[in-house]
Structures are given as C-alpha cells and as structure tokens.
C-alpha cells in the first residue's frame, strides 16, 4: 500500500508543479458551465427549469477531450524519459504502479467534480432540485470520468509519445461512448452494442436509479483498462 501511495504522491506533485492540473481543471469547468448556462436551444437561463442534467450531458462530451489529457503522460512519459526502467526494477509490482498513477487522476477528477457543484448549489437556492436525481447523476458522472481516465491510462501505456497517447485515448473512449449508435434495430448485435456502450449505461443514472448492472459495467471497464495497462508494462518481459 505504501508503494501505491508513493507513486500517487509523486504524480500529484508532478500535476501541480506544472500548469497541467490547473489548465485541465479550469478548462473543463469553464467550458461545461458555459455550455450549460448559456449555449444551445435550451440554455439554463432561458428554460427556467431547476434541472442540472445539462451539466452531465455536456460534461460527458467535454470530459471525453479532457480526461485523456490528464492521463496521457502517465506511462508514455516514463517510457519517453526511460524512467520506467528504474521504476519497474524497484521493489514495486507493475499493478501497484498502475493503481498509484490511476489514483492521482481520480483525485484530479474529484477536484473537477467539486467544481461542478457550483451549479446545483446555486440553483438549489432559487429552485427546487430533486436531490435524489442530483446524487445519482453525480455517481454516474464519477463512474463515467473514472472509466475515461482508466481508458486514457491504458492508451498511455501503449506508446512513448504523449500526443499519440492522447489521440488513442480519445478514440477508445469515443468508440465506447458512441457504440450504441453503431448498429440499428433490435437484433442481437444491436442489443449487444447498446449494452456495451457508455452512453446507454450513463443515461440510466439520470433517472435517479442506481442499477447494479450499470455500476458493474463501469467497474468492469475500469478493471479491464487497468489490467491492460499493467500487462503493457509487463510486455517488456516478453520482448
């Protein structure tokens, strides 16, 4: 456990020693809040309904571009600087390295989540928010972000180039996000694609219901992504 925390602390230092964390957090909050309050056919101020679903709809798309930017450097930069060789020859397992790094991205995301609370808190003063839906939506949004970040981490473990990691990350996330649109109708394939898509499971959270199938879906995606990342580190052994 102390090894995981050592990696976690190092990553947090790196995020906050450079402008990465500030840029990522502030750009997400600015863009998402602007989209929610002021953009499109039904901006919040125009429709006059105490509903914050827009935060999560727009947020899911904005995060698709922001999350891979958080995780892109995690492994690729270690490969690029050759520091990975030192890291994996210390008494620490590959999985501990991955989990430590993943944990740091979750904390960055938690800060982002905290920032989005401005909307529900301020709205709750002037309107009547359904707190059940708000809470379940936030849980859904947390799992969505956690999944994006795990996928971004996996993408980072495939390459020694951060930009390549960023693009691979976006592609993987977009494929999973949009999968339900890839097959039409009600056949087996369409059902399969729908059940595999992030959007399908994500939407369920807005009804104020927590379904174990949705939670299980996100947890599986996260586990598989972390496993792939750790396997990618281990691939040095089979060269």
């Amino acid at each position, binding site marked *: 456990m102390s*090894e995981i925390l050592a990696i976690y602390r190092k990553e947090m*230092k*790196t995020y906050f020693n450079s402008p990465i964390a500030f840029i990522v957090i502030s750009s997400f909050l600015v863009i998402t809040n602007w989209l929610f309050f002021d953009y499109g056919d039904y901006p919040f101020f125009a429709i006059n309904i105490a509903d914050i679903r827009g935060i999560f709809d727009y947020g899911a798309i904005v995060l698709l571009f922001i999350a891979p930017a958080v995780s892109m450097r995690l492994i690729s930069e270690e490969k690029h600087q*050759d520091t990975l*060789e*030192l890291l994996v020859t210390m*008494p*620490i397992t590959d999985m501990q390295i991955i989990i430590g790094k993943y944990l740091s991205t979750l904390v960055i995301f938690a800060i982002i989540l905290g920032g989005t609370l401005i909307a529900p808190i301020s709205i709750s003063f002037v309107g009547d928010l359904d707190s059940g839906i708000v809470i379940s939506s936030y849980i859904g949004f947390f799992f969505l972000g956690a999944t994006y970040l795990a996928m971004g981490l996996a993408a980072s473990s495939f390459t020694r180039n951060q930009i390549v990691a960023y693009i691979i990350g976006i592609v993987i996330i977009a494929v999973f996000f949009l999968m339900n649109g890839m097959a039409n109708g009600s056949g087996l394939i369409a059902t399969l694609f729908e059940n595999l898509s992030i959007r399908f499971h994500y939407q369920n959270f807005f009804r104020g219901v927590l379904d174990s199938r949705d939670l299980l879906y996100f947890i599986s995606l996260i586990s598989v992504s972390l496993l792939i990342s750790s396997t990618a580190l281990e691939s*040095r052994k089979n*060269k």
Partner: protein
Amino acid sequence: MIDVQNVTKSYGAFEAVKDVSFTVEQGEILGFLGPNGAGKTTMMKMITCYMPPTGGRISVDGLDVLTDSMGVRKKIGYLPESTPLYEEMGVLDYLNFVADVRKVKGADRTRAMDRVISVTGLTKVIHKDINELSKGYRQRVGFAQAIIHDPEILVLDEPTTGLDPNQIIEIRNLIRELGESKTVIFSTHIMQEVQATSDRVLIIDQGKIAAQGTAEELKASIAGQMHLDMVLRNADKSKFIEAIKNIEQIHLEDIKLQKNGDIEAALKVDAGTDLREQLFDLAVSNQWKILESSPSSFTLEDVFRKLTN
C-alpha cells in the same frame, strides 16, 4: 553474491546473450567490458529484474530473479544507462520519492538522505529541479537514488559515459569508495576505466564471455608478446609475406602497400624471442631497405581489440 548460470537472452531471432556463466563474490568490483551492443546492458537488465532470461538461472544472494524478484530488487541499487531521471521534479522531491518506494522511513530516512547527499556531493543543488542540472550532477543524482536504501549490490550501466575527464575521475573514485563496502557490477567500453576501478574484468563480445580475470591476468595472457611495425623499401609484397611465413615466431597481422611502393607491415612477435637480427639479415639478403622498425608491448586495449574483433 551474484550467480549467473548458462544464461541466454533472445529478442526474437536475435540472441543478445549466449550461454553466459559467471559469479561475483561479495565485496568485489566487477567491470563488464565490451563493445557497444555486446550484451552488457541486456545482462544487467536481467540481473536487476527488468526482464527475465530466456534460459538459464540468475540468483542474487541466493534469491532467484524469477521466483523472488521483489527480494532481489530490494538488495540492488541500479543506475541504468544514460541515467533516466524525472526532469520536472526537484532533486530533493525525487530522492524522497525513491526513499518512499524503497520504504526508507522515519529516522532512517533522515540518516539515509544526509549520507547520500554528502557521499554524492549534492548539497549545492538539492533544492534545484533536475532539468536545471549539469550532466555531472545528473549522474550524481542517479547514484544517490541507487544507494539511498544502502543496497548490498550496485549495478551501474556505463556510469561515466558523456562526462568530462574531471567528472569521470570523480565518478570512478565514487565507485571505488562504494565498492569498499558493496558488491559492484559496472559496465564500460573504456579500457582505463576497468583498469582503474575494478577488481576483476569480464570481457563480453557478441553475447559471449570472451575472457575474464583481473586486469593483470588478462595482460599476462599475452605477456611478452610484442608488436613490431616495419616499413620496407624496394620490397616485393608477396615475397615478403612468403618470407615472414617461414619464420615460426612471427605472425603477420596487417600489410599495406604505400603510394610510393613502400611496404608497411604490422607483425606480432611471440614471447621471449628477439628476431631483430634475423629480420635484418632477411632484408639484406633480399636487398630490402628497412626504413622503420618499431617494437611495442601489448596493452589491455590490445587484449580487448583482439578478443572482440
């Protein structure tokens, strides 16, 4: 301390290390010598548990690198080739991070940090960021992270590459100093380095051990042998080669025809023979004129060149 038995490593069809066996005793400083691409780095990567051997066994202080990898890693301090460091971290932050992962805690941590910083002479730069450091200081940070947990074994891959002559001497002194209490394996392709630093030398070439022993032993293996460089005028090349072949104690290493027709020959003369008179007579009888005849003794450099060519 380190026992390498019949170790092979292949990258696909390419065999980087071929059936290598050697042992390193406790407290010994072993120099890995070999041309670039000889398999030195691969060997070190296997000892430090970066990757497993394809065949054979490596054990460190009785622990197998495959089955007891974590135990082995705890005993080793490793400085990889080209000293990889986290550019964006501060020196102190970085050393603290390594101490964290290595579980050096509390009062031990304070003591370890003081010791490491003074041994490697990092006091002046401890509050700088790593990307501000000169090559020499970077190398010291690399050393510092390798010894922070006071390991029994140090593995150093080309620790002096890219340093200026003063820094090279500093690093060599550091290796010798650390070698007093630790087992050290270091690699280099510079001859004087092994001569200056190590107790024993292992010459590796094309994945195999070409020779091993102390620097003196290796030199003794060709002791007494001499180089003889000659320049002859009015000589016929094929006739000269023929004549040299007839003298048992002389071996022709290289022969060149100069532009003006002179012959330039590099000869190797066996130990304990002085053939200068014989060669003089040979030249006279053929009416060759000896323009130059300069003998020189073999150096460790020659052993290396001879074994790895």
